């Protein structure tokens, strides 16, 4: 697993404990210039040998570039077969086995596995984020704004195979990515009344999986178990995946809008550019010294 962390002292410890107990073998963490305790926590885990802390490259942090660098390192230096690039506030929850077991089951011709994102909402209250944020947004409708933090979306796990084109295994979501709004700029928190209304309306549902898993780890459990969804849970998961499909259609509409705008720009500039080039070509074709 590769992680870029920045000022996430409230989540990074849980993040590392959870994934190391969920089937991740190696965690590479890049501290993106934290000013809170993140760096000290990472160094403590590194001293125990659980993780490897990487310095950022020189210059401004370019997360996609750093993610690619870490994925390469994971494959070449740490023998990774699969790489999960995660945020410190994300928890990758496998369905029916550990992360290692899920990824080992993927047929060799596929190189990308999809994960369904689950959005937890900020909640007023005392205690750690995992103890208080136990309310998950129900993806009952696609959200048209792709920049919304609640937009239905998928995440990906990739084989560590640099230079090889990776084929996604579509239609299968054996992992859920539980996403928690921790860190700066997480928006307005839900109070008890708002939570009650949203639960009654079906906009939120209670999901204590991470809280319970972290409690087990705090009690000394070393490895976590991940049960297979039963028929009711599988049906609900399918409904949520269907919402993702509807959101994809909305995104496709957005891409078509962008294509139309780009095409209009080409249409409006091409005739003028063509006329300029025709005049230039006509001058070039004129016999030396002859009339234009």
């Amino acid at each position: 697993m590769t992680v870029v962390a920045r000022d996430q002292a409230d989540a990074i410890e849980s993040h590392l404990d959870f994934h190391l107990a969920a089937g991740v073998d190696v965690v590479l963490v890049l501290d993106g210039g934290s000013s809170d305790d993140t760096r000290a926590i990472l160094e403590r885990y590194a001293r125990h040998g659980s993780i490897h802390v990487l310095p950022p490259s020189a210059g401004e942090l370019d997360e996609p570039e750093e993610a690619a660098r870490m994925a390469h390192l994971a494959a070449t230096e740490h023998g990774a077969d699969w790489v999960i690039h995660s945020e410190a506030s994300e928890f990758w929850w496998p369905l029916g086995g550990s992360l290692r077991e899920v990824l080992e089951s993927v047929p060799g011709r596929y190189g990308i596995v999809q994960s369904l994102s689950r959005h937890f909402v900020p909640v007023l209250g005392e205690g750690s984020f995992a103890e208080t944020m136990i309310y998950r947004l129900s993806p009952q409708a696609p959200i048209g704004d792709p920049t919304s933090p609640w937009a239905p979306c998928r995440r990906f796990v990739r084989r560590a195979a640099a230079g090889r084109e990776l084929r996604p295994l579509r239609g299968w979501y054996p992992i859920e990515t539980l996403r928690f709004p921790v860190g700066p700029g997480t928006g307005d928190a839900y109070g008890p009344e708002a939570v009650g209304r949203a639960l009654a309306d079906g906009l939120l549902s209670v999901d204590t999986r991470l809280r319970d898993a972290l409690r087990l780890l705090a009690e000394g459990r070393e490895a976590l178990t991940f049960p297979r969804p039963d028929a009711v849970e599988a049906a609900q998961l399918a409904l949520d995946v269907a919402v993702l499909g509807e959101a994809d259609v909305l995104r496709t509409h957005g891409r078509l809008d962008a294509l139309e705008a780009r095409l209009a720009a080409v249409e409006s500039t091409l005739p003028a550019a063509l006329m300029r080039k025709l005049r230039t070509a006509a001058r070039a074709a004129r016999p030396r010294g002859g009339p234009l």
Partner: protein
Amino acid sequence: MRVVMTLVARDEADIVGDQIRYHLDAGVDFVVATDHRSTDGTTEILRDYEREGRLHLIRRGGEAFTQSEWVTEMARLAATEFGADWVINSDADEFWWPREGRLHDVLAAVPARFGVIRGIWRQFALRPDSDEPFYESLLVRRAPDADARSPYHAQVKAAHRAAGRVLIPEGNHDALGERLILMREWYPFEVLHFPMRSREQLERKYRAAWAGHRLDESLPVPRHIEAMASGLRTSPRDVHEAFVVEDAALAAGLSDGLLAIDTRLRDRLRGVEAGAQTRPSLADDAALAAEIDGALLDNDAAHLLAARVEALERRLAAVETNTAVPGRSLRTLARAVRRGGRAGP
């Protein structure tokens, strides 16, 4: 909850009794069956179940095979006469295998606003002829073909909430009607499919199916039936050899992942308790997902649309970045005009 299965059979005595036995054991409460001109003992098997009060038998005498009309009638009867809550429209060579729990568990899990769910065919390959029951000898499952002309093409089958005005289109792949909303993205059933079971049976089946479909002038003959019948007219032996999996081919197919040994139906029909069987493993799930990905999603409307948008984006980007091309072309033209002018009179 009451589940009724509909069934159309023609000369399927080697499988139809086990098919009904399996489904009654799995949770189907009643069967409505149409017997189409059977002469091989199928009728007697169906009558036995009718005498037990587990089946309603309809007999069809004409040669034409009007599947949609017959299945629609049976599905409506299931709703109006036999008290069904859910209807499974099946063929005699199909076994609906719930992936989680028992059949009732799956149907009970469907949210109320949805009325149709789908199963996906899992194709079992033809093996060398044997005297054993089909479920003892046909233990090799094969990957589906994307080509609709193959009898092993990828396909879905639909089960639906009972409705007195339901319409079942040809092939039982859908169910249409008021409030029969399809629950996409979920395949809670595998439909174990044994379309070819012996050389004699395959020849008889596809010849009769082709003749029956030809007489239904409302629809074209399905492509896989047309292709099989055409092959049988040319060389029945070649058709059989093209599909039978001999032991040498089995070993190769197992090693390259195109074939798999699947004893689930055999074990169930031998009497192994449903609850004693293990749940699907992650590898089973991944293999099924790969079949769905390879055979079904390539034709999915949303995926096709996204692929076309991607292609358009690439083309437009090429136009945007190659605005120098017209200029280069025109400069080339200018050079050619100049050369032509010098060479002219």
